[in-house]
């Protein structure tokens, strides 16, 4: 049986794995995993917050 819920879960799992596989973006994996779990209430602002807050140390210095 091809359960579509499985398909959604598969898409999310493959997506998170791709994120994890890329060293430049791997730190996004955990917060994105949480956000995907609340898919129905996901808003652009929530995503932007994740993009802004993760990996602060790697953000460029002020020079």
């Amino acid at each position: 049986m091809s359960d579509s819920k499985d398909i959604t879960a598969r898409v999310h799992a493959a997506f998170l794995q791709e994120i994890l596989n890329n060293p430049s973006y791997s730190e996004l994996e955990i917060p994105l995993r949480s956000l995907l779990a609340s898919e129905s209430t996901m808003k652009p602002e929530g995503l932007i917050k994740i993009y802004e807050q993760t990996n602060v140390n790697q953000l460029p210095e002020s020079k």
Partner: protein
Amino acid sequence: MIQIEEIKIENFRGIRELTLQPNRKSFAIQGPNASGKSCVVDAIEFALTGNLSRLAGDGTAGLSVGSHGMHVDSRKNPAASKVSMRLYHSRSKEVFTITRCLDKPSQPKLKPDTPATRALLAQFGRRDEITLTRRQIAKYVLVQATQRSTDVQNLLRLDCIGSIRKTMASAERKCQTNAATAGKELKSSAELLQRHLQVDSLTPDAILAAINPKRIQLGLVPLGDLESISFLDPDTQGLEQTSGHVVRLTALRDLQAFREATSSPELARASQAIVQTLRVLDLDPKLNLKLRSHKLFELGLELAEEDSCPLCESPRSLEELRAHFTKKLEQSKRAGQIAKAIAESANELRDACFDVVLKARPIVELAKRLKLDEFSLKLEISTSSLQSKSDLLHNLDGISAIREQLVSFVDFSGLDSDLAHLGRTIERLPDQSATLEAMSFLTLASERFTNVCKRQAEQKRSQKILDRAQFVHRTYSDVSQAELETLYRSVEKTFADAYRSLHHEDESTFTARLTPDEGRLDLDVEFFGRGMFPPGAYHSEGHQDSMGLCLYLALMQQVFGDELRLVVLDDVVMSVDSSHRRAICELLKNWFPDTQFIITTHEEIWFYQMQTVGLIDRKNARIFQSWSVDHGPVVSDAVETWSQIDAFLTAGNVPSASLTLRRHLERVLPQIADALGAETSFRLDNKHDLGELKTACYVRLKETLHQAAAAAKEWADLDMALAAEDLLQTLTNIIPEYDKESKYVTATIHDNAWAKLVKQDFLPVVQAFKDFSACFQCPRCKDWIKRTPRQSSKKLECNCGFTNFAITKPSAEQKATLGKVG
């Protein structure tokens, strides 16, 4: 998934009181239009979802389940309007009952009420996916690709993938805007520094080459790099004197840059383009109206997330809303192009305004340093006003509000004298001493350099955030696209296989292609070897109906797989001809043996085909003969016919008994003739005389039983031979009785004086017809016995297999084998 054991309907839509017992098996209702068939479909949907899609969508404004779900005479007592269903859950093998009343449609009563039964019901939510109606059948094949994508994703329960993708795209757009703004700020700050240092580029060497001569002038050591944020050493003597000082040449250059920005050709060009486009709209009021509604529909489509319109809050299903907005957007395509042109010019104008605002900043600062406070304030107010106006350029309403100002959008002419005065003031500044000039130069250079560093950091940060947004969005799109591709390959294969099984005689090479692409789902189908086209391009309406049904079934199978146990088909084969309807029966029966189909139709032949093919047992077939507002549908079935006739006779109503018998014969004799492949004279209108049909059926069965008896003897199956001969003898005995009594039926119906029969006279008539019918029925399942296959028949059998005569004799080889065994 669940199956229906029993459904009890009370005071719901057009039904007063009705109980049907499908008993987990497929069930069919046949009747003319307006006989109450669809009320049963509505009742099933209502019981499962609390919703009624018939009361939502186009043309249903003002209608609702709560106000119009009950029987018209029960409007004041919605609690008396209810639907109960006894359901069987195939996985847990448990039976439970759901009852839903019109007074509280969202609060079903479950028995037993357990978390498991609640969870089961929650699966249905507000979805009506188990039901396919005539109205819906075309939506999978004939809608626009964007709408199909939405519909199919909803049916496949993949809508969350689409919505997450949209959210990611929206976040990316916002990050893009932020990064663009940061880029402009950086560019402007860099230009300021370049103007001051008078260098072509801001490389470390160029900057050092500009500042070090000034440091040497001050007796400071030349800098070797740009590690220090300040170009002056903190303890430089006289540093405090430079505070508020103006570097004359830089000030003049800043002033010139500001003037050039306010008179930039981009400003004029973009303003003029907007004005001209608005004039086009003035000349075409309808286009203007469409442009406004286009934006509104875009907004509606973007915001549609629930079963009510996001613009007016009227209740409509999400699916209807999206279809409506998409259709409206297509209709206002030209308006969409105008909107795009205006938006592009507005963006250009906004960028040019932003440049003016950025270049005004050092002028404001300069004016303050020169104590021109009034001018400084005026300039601040003017730039702030320009910024506000430019913010209005984001949408058409805003543009319309400032339309009159577009011709001279950036107008600082009121400050001309002040600017001229500023210029003169700068010119008149006394020559500074070389030392002071060097210190002022380095102080301003440090300020502007610091600002560039800050803007650069912000720009890098914004870009990094944008990179993340783009990567996340692209990755999710790629991954979901790949997964959906696999899914759609599977759906299109099932769809094409199913369609080919219906149209194998002329479309045996039929293939289909579903192509998903960022919010779209294109469907192309093969047309007689001439290529792939959209379904509506060349295929007939009947073929499109077949496609709609096949695609729906393929999608449902994808969603539920082996768990697909219940599908409701409401009058879905209107445009399909009878040979293909039989193929549909075979498809449903053979491809979905464990699925309970609840089927309504006004087509008698299809209703009958469902029974002969074995999709529906005769005891699960109901005829809705007529309907009245007071009593609802008048229901009958083959078994009940004899009970009805008995009831009429008990009441002494011979004419009604006779009429019922006649109607029964008119219905069943064509079915018997079809099952046996009886031969009749061809008639264009297909209306055969009952006597002709009776004879044809009799002759065919007699011939077949002779064949069966002879074949059984050859197979050395004496019991079977005896059974065939017995049935043949019964048939032969009955026919004279049938012929004798049949004249009374017609005579009684037409009220002939000589046929004024009483109950006792008519009983033998009824018995003769009962006996005659029984010869053509399986004694166990009561289905009509039939010759199978239809061409080159080999058997006389029923659907349950109890009646099963071979009618072909053994081959010489088989005979030899039989001889050896014997």
